[in-house]
């Protein structure tokens, strides 16, 4: 395991390494099945079109899970306390996606050391498909 991310090493404005990936239709379906998500819209194009959508879409939960993966990979031993997301556009398979996170605030209290992050998921056209925020508790060197 690499070194954990300590609170003291984080500065407001820090950009986390972006998570770039392209989901396949099979990956989206596998996530939906594992996550017990009903709705043919997550299973394939034909099922999604029957629901009035242009084709298969990824569940909002999957976008949030991928944000948690980005945060988890960066923080190593950080603890995710809050995760908020607004789903603004359809997240489709076979489309390049980039998950961004930037530290917008950090504060310490008797309860621990916390950082707030802004989150954005965008496609290759720069369209913001998901926006959100997250709160992480980080370990301290002290």
């Amino acid at each position, binding site marked *: *395991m690499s070194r954990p991310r300590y609170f003291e090493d984080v500065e407001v404005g820090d950009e986390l390494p972006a998570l770039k990936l392209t989901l396949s239709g099979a990956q989206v379906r596998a*996530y939906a099945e594992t996550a017990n998500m009903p709705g043919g819209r997550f299973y394939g194009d034909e099922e999604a079109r029957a629901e009035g959508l242009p084709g298969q879409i990824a569940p909002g939960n999957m976008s949030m899970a991928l944000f*948690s993966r980005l945060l988890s990979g960066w923080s190593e031993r950080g603890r995710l306390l809050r995760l908020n997301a607004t789903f603004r556009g359809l997240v489709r398979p076979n489309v390049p996606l980039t998950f961004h996170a930037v530290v917008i605030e950090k504060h310490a209290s008797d309860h621990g050391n916390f950082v707030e992050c802004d989150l954005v998921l965008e496609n290759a056209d720069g369209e913001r498909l998901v926006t959100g925020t997250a709160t992480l508790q980080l370990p301290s060197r002290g």
Partner: protein
Amino acid sequence: MALTFDRSILGQEFDHTVFEPVTKEDMLAYATAYGETNPIYLDEAAARSGPYGTLVAVPTFAFRLRGHHFMPKSLAQVGRAGLDAGKDVEFGEPIRPGDVLTASSTIHDIYEKTGRTGTMHFIVIRTLVTNQNGMRVAVIDQRMMFR
């Protein structure tokens, strides 16, 4: 679609589901389904040296808990035709293998917004997830949008 409802339904529990004990296999299957890479969620040896001292589920594992009813009967006309507009989630006690989780769902809020494309109705479903010790595991506010 006009959305008529009795505001007395706000805050009333419409679903209460107790799930089978969580298994390590379920936890790992969920984590790998979206490509989790942090070894504290994937490897027992790494987890032992991690912040929890044992293997725990990734936080969003709570998303896979599905109660028996998605909506109260009084909102049955809405059905499942809406779109997921977003979620606000607070995570609490980590989920461990063997945990028996309970999900309790209420309608937290109903409101409408009017924009350029017309009126949109929002229903906020709040699901409280607790473990067998009564500790809060997650509070999930899901905003469903209907036109």
